[in-house]
């Protein structure tokens, strides 16, 4: 692992408790497949603004609002598409040198 600590990942949605929890589970599955050690939290967009994660994941309508919150911002359209999210995480974490 190129990063000497656990990655902090934030799944965001509007309310912060329904959809983002689904997204968190999809992200955890994808990260497990990639063998990445990460902590995934879920929250709403307003709360997210006060946080400083390494990676933010959300729908475009939300990630546009918080595009500068994290070094890696991933926009998805399907909260349940584990394979699609895994591919994006592989690319984007790879760019940062955060994959083993």
């Amino acid at each position: 692992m190129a990063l000497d600590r656990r990655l902090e990942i934030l799944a965001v949605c509007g309310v912060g408790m329904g959809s983002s929890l689904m997204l968190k589970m999809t992200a955890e599955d994808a990260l497990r497949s990639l063998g990445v050690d990460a902590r995934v939290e879920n929250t709403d967009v307003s709360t997210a603004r006060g946080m400083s994660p390494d990676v933010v994941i959300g729908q475009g309508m939300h990630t546009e609002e918080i595009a500068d919150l994290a070094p890696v911002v991933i926009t998805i359209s399907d909260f349940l598409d584990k394979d699609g999210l895994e591919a994006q995480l592989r690319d984007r974490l790879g760019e940062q040198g955060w994959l083993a």
Partner: protein
Amino acid sequence: MTGPAPIVAAIDGAVADGWRAAVRAAASALVEAGAAGPGYPDACVRVVEENGPYIVLTKGLALVHARPEEGGLAVGVGVTRLASPVEFGHPDNDPVDLLLAFCTPDPDVHVGTLAGLARALSGGLADRLRAAPGREELSRTLKEAVPDA
């Protein structure tokens, strides 16, 4: 996390002239089942008005919900199948023909139920709900997906 089994509600063939009516129908099923208070359907519509149609989680499927303090009385999960699909204005996942609705009295108590629902959706729950021949089967299929929270 353990607790009482969630209340499950199902509506088949709901007629909605747009996403607001569809969301209200889906949330009203929870009100009728005694899981949510009377203000919950409007709160669920407001979530989308204020935050955009992000509740359309995947192709054709929306997860209708609002914050617990908007009227969650018990953990409730509902499925509503529309007579004809509606547009939410989602860039990728429109039109929506299937709505899952969710309510909880407490932000922590719902995690087990939603986790079960997420796993079931990844395992093809939406297709099974679409294929259910009637309201009884809709309800039973959803119940199997969300056993005790």
